[in-house]
């Protein structure tokens, strides 16, 4: 009972877009695809949707191959947004719903209901070209869910949304999750992932660098982060001298340090107490997804992701 991506590979010419990726996405969970541009997120989604065929590997949903599944299993919000410019919102939403097998009358009722939910019922008879980008995106989201799909695949759904609309979309996500849908989306916004996702996979150049529940991924390094603030000593110079502790950041209010795998973060607290410090703040945490992302993706090859050095002028 899950969406299983089993060693899927895909090559476009000289580019290995996907290199034997395997993932398991549980039904009813919110799953995040993370990766830089060109990591293979969109290709992976298209292959799951059977828009593209993989060179090797299989996709199954609850044991059925994706090539055998009815198309209405999936709801898809593509990264490249597009609607029929000259058609009205209602017309095209009903059109898409009908293509997915929804009866015409039910399609119109559902459409009006969702427009109501998104607080844009007055847009039903407007042409798509008359809508703002944010509102077009809402229409596209409705197009993806109108036929009540079991699995929703969304490519960068939050890109280009203002905070208000992003909050609206997050609420809709929650509702789909409450209805028992499986949600898969790609993004490069780490905060959104930490806020919404139960599981993630970080992709880099067609490979899954790390995957699993957000908790497991954050713990995957074995390192822990500690944040300490001591009264009267903003620098806490002794912190870096402790065994297995490495200061990563000195903030205004606290000092952040990494505790290497196999070392007890509690030793930092004990060291502080033994030095007689007056502790104002002590926090233990797993590394953030952003740290892990930069670390995991960065350690493979950073050269293409940073600006090349400025050419020296004589």
């Amino acid at each position, binding site marked *: 009972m899950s969406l299983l991506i089993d060693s899927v590979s895909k090559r476009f*010419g000289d580019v290995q877009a996907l290199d034997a990726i395997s993932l398991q996405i549980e039904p009813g969970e919110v799953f995040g695809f993370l990766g830089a541009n060109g990591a293979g997120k969109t290709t992976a989604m298209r292959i799951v949707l059977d828009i*593209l065929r993989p060179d090797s590997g299989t996709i199954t949903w609850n044991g059925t191959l994706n*090539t055998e599944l009815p198309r209405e299993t*999936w709801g898809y919000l*593509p990264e*490249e947004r597009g*609607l029929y410019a000259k*058609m009205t919102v209602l017309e095209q939403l009903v059109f898409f719903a009908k*293509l997915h097998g929804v009866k015409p009358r039910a399609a119109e009722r559902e459409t009006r209901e969702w427009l109501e939910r998104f607080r844009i019922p007055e847009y039903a008879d407007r042409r798509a070209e008359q809508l703002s980008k944010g509102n077009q995106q809402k229409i596209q989201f409705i197009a993806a869910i109108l036929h009540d799909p079991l699995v929703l695949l969304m490519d960068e759904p939050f890109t280009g949304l203002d905070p208000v609309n992003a909050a609206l979309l997050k609420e809709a996500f929650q509702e789909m999750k409450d209805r028992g849908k499986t949600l898969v989306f790609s993004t490069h916004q780490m905060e959104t992932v930490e806020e919404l996702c139960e599981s993630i996979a970080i992709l880099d150049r067609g490979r899954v660098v790390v995957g699993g529940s957000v908790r497991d991924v954050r713990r995957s390094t074995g390192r822990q982060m500690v944040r300490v603030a001591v009264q009267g000593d903003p620098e806490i110079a002794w912190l870096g001298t402790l065994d297995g502790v490495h200061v990563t950041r000195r903030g205004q209010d606290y000092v952040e340090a990494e505790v290497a795998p196999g070392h007890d973060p509690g030793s930092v607290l004990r060291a502080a107490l033994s030095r007689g410090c007056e502790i104002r703040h002590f926090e233990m945490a797993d590394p953030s997804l952003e740290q892990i992302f930069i670390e995991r993706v960065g350690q493979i090859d950073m050269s293409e992701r940073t600006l090349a050095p400025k050419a020296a002028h004589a």
Partner: protein
Amino acid sequence: MKGWRTLFPNAWYVAVREYRSRCRSRSFVIGTILLAAISFAATQIPVLIDISVSTSETRVAVVVQASDMPSDSLALFDATLNGQSTDPNAHKDFAISWLPGGDATAAQTDLERGKYDVLLIVDRDAASDLRFTLRTDSPRDGRPVQTITNALVSLEIEDRLSRSGTSTAALRAPFSLTVASVTGTSEQTNNLSSEISTGLLSTGLIVLIFMAIVTYGVWVAMSVAEEKGSRVMELMLNATTPLQMLTGKMLGNGGAGMTQYGLILVAVIVGLVAQGPIHKAVLGSDAGTQFGGLSPAVLAAFVVLFVLGFTLYSLLYAALGSLVSRQEDVQSATSPLMVLIMLGYFMSVFGLQAIDETWVKVASFVPFFSPYLMLARVSAGHVEPWEFGLAVLLLLAAIVVALFVAARIYSAGVLLYGQRVSLAQVLRAARVSR
């Protein structure tokens, strides 16, 4: 390909959407109105020609100063100039003002003022023969002057005979005239006018097919490129299969094209039917319209070849349209197809002149050319039923092959974005796409 089982209703929904959005577009509405108006006007050209002919009559003033003119001279003159028509409303090339004992000087003034085109003065010379004096600015070897000169010969002869005592009634008695072919059979075997009308008909029907493929095939390509350009394609790809989309686009755009064609045809038929009444209203006489050589069999062959030909070509248009992401690039992407279409068209134009040549016969079975050449052969009436059947079967087979090829190119092409997609790239992508 699992698409076969589930072609409908999605292909139908796509077709309806394509049809509606095409028919609602401004270019469609304006284009249809304009073309219908032009077609209607074109059907009135024969009427216009008749009108211009009817207004160009030659006005002849005849001042008769000669005495003892035969009593029916005017009737003879009129009949020779205008022909012997019993219809009082029939158009006359010459308007005759017969002025017995008239004043030559006054008539001369009227001539100079433009009241007449020709002034004819008739008197007798010393030998009592009729003497004619013709004043006109129309060319001496022009048709009006020639005709009048011929009429004068008749008048002169009749006058001389009448003076010699021969009864003019005997002169007017009808005589026998037979026109036969060289070999002596009474009917000529080659009916020139029907030959010409058959040729015109085949050319007309071939042009109809050619225009439909060129115009409406491009619509299919345009609509594919448009969807790709606006990126709706990505939504569509999840909602439908390439085969459903291809079929729907073909049906929708083809249907819109047929609607436009139908409306233009209605304008033409209305124009042809109206020819008579308009002719009557303007000119006071009726004119018949002829549809020569359009038999039900030719019409049926036309419809079959039209539909199949359009289907085959629009599949290829859809495939080529999927290779570009902007509508502006459609023209250049579809130019190879244009060459193929033009080739078939010109082959049929030359083929009509040599309908029984072997190369015409062979080419009339080749799927891309058969819509033109088989039609040409059918309308010329030089074709066996099995030949037509074979051409249709081959065309159908080509459509099935084209459907698979086009669906592959299409499903690969629609996901390729970029300025220039090479065919090799597409074929490579097509190999692995669904």
